[in-house]
């Protein structure tokens, strides 16, 4: 990605490990992310690729112990949050950066009313009185399509989709600059997924937010994002605009992801899953972490870890195969 002076988020060489009794889990191994203001970045990858760890790092909410941010910098609006005090971090969480979590069923506190749970964050960051904050909570609920009267109800009185709307309301209550959505629709029914996604897009555009959308659903990326980063074993293997990554896929893993999708207009075509499994993050293979599953792997891939190289201004790929002249993926077309 190009260097832009107006970056809301600039992550450089982030390394996060979980140091457990069984060994060191290398969750994130040197990630760079540049997110221009009011853009939406999709982070794609399988379970365990380091998507959520990356997101939690931005809020500095990695469970510690065992999680440790080993190195790197996370510049939010030009300021390295890894140098902040815990107190300063608290003033950023919920106000500048808000997060939507994956499972709406368990992400709301069952013993407080939804109104209280929204008002709490407004009171904390904007110092409103209780009654003003509750009024604001009602307005925020209306914004996500829930009648304000329901603010006195408890989470168990809402359906899954409605709960996720409440969580979105909590996240947006203080107009954050950056919204991180961690698989916000994975736990929802397909029809509800579309509604929630539509709502998020609409609110993002209305409020002028920047957004990071973590997902394993390429359809959501195509629908919502401007840029996309594909994560594998804690590294970015391919990044670029959605058009670049979707139309001229370059990394064998990204190719594998697309080949795993069913093709509707070709009923004869078989889904081609990527053979093998994600490597154990305690014992990552040497060289490129993807080489044991990669159909194009050769000698060098087992020895050296490929760096992200740029083809064009924004399209980065971390793959040794492009050392060979005239290399092209055989993507199903």
């Amino acid at each position, binding site marked *: 990605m190009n260097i832009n002076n107006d970056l809301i988020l600039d992550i450089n060489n982030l390394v996060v490990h979980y140091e457990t009794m069984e060994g060191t889990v290398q969750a994130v191994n040197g990630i760079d992310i540049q997110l221009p203001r009011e853009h939406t970045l999709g982070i794609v990858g399988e379970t365990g690729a380091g998507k959520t760890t990356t997101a939690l790092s931005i809020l500095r909410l990695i469970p510690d112990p065992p999680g440790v941010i080993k190195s790197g910098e996370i510049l939010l609006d030009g300021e390295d949050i890894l140098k902040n005090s815990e107190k300063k971090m608290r003033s950023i969480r919920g106000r500048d950066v808000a997060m939507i979590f994956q499972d709406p069923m368990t992400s709301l506190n*069952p013993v407080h009313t939804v109104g209280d749970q929204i008002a709490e964050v407004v009171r904390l960051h904007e110092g409103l009185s209780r009654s003003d904050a509750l009024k604001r909570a009602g307005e925020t609920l209306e914004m996500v399509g829930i009648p304000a009267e329901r603010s006195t109800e408890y989470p168990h009185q809402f359906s899954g989709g409605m709960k996720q709307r409440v969580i979105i309301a909590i996240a947006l209550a203080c107009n954050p600059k950056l919204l991180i959505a961690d698989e916000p629709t994975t736990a929802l029914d397909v029809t509800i997924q579309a509604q929630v996604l539509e709502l998020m897009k609409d609110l993002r555009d209305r409020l002028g937010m920047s957004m990071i959308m973590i997902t394993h659903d390429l359809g959501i990326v195509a629908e919502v994002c401007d840029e996309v980063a594909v994560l594998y074993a804690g590294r970015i293997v391919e990044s670029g605009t959605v058009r670049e990554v979707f139309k001229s896929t370059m990394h064998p893993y990204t190719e594998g992801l697309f080949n795993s999708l069913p093709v509707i207009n070709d009923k004869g075509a078989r889904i081609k899953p990527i053979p093998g499994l994600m490597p154990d993050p305690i014992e990552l293979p040497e060289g490129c972490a993807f080489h044991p599953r990669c159909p194009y792997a050769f000698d060098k891939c087992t020895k050296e870890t490929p760096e992200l190289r740029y083809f064009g201004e924004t399209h980065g790929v971390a793959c040794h195969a492009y050392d060979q002249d005239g290399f092209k993926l055989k993507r199903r077309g």
Partner: protein
Amino acid sequence: MSRYIFRRVLQLIPVILGASAIIFFILSYSTQDPVMMLLAGTDPTPEQIEMTRQQLGLDKPIVVQFFSYMGGLLRGDLGVSYNSGRPVFQEYIARFPATLKLAFWALFVSVLISIPIGIVSAIKQYSWFDNFGMTFAMLGVSTPNFWLGLMLMLLFAVKLGWLPSGGYGGLEYLIMPAVTLGTSQAGLATRMTRSSMLEVIRQDYIRTARAKGLSERVVIIKHALKNALIPIVTVVGFQFGHALGGAMITETIFSWPGVGRLMIDGIHKGDRPVVIGCVIMLCIMVSVVNLGVDIFYAFLDPRIKAGYTK
């Protein structure tokens, strides 16, 4: 909600009747003869013995005795003490304030110790504080009350002379019995607080609360503790109910004139109506406190409240 309470009170009746029946028959088959106990030291003639037996109604068959006692019970009559000749209920009520006082202060000591230690142990799991807290909890659970009571007495009454060794009166009389009873209750309550908090602080909504920017104190007290309280309240409530029924060992060691000692004295003297009366009151106390705990759940968790009103 009131329908729920009504239903629960109705459920109390078979519990009390069942418990009374069991204790009645157990005592009837005890080897002690209440008449001989009552007339002990007077060298009675056989006529005197027979007369006392008739007076107490003990000459009738056991089944008749049982039904006449239960008949009285249904009218709220717990019978008359063989020993003092006063109604058992009056004796009980006279002793109850002392027991209530001890139970309350023991609860206070227990909660004051167990909740903070349990919370900090959970937050700092496997730290030195956690190890210390869990060692304390184990000691609290496994130390017999009579031993702890005697040790406290040796130290503070005999050696240092700071506190009276027993009896009933102001705060100075209350400290040692309350600490003895309270620390033994705190052992279990501490473990319960810790395990319940450990489960809650791993929940997703705790992460949501942190992501809002709330301080750790607010996250723990407002978001975690309220969710963790249900098992804690259950244990503490059960212990409180038991203490209300009479802390027999603690009351005996410190000569505390509560219902626990009334019952122990009753057992020693073969005073069957007093013993049965005390057991029935114990049942009622435990049940009433449990009902109170169940109602308290509704204030802690709106989902439970919704279940009650159905």
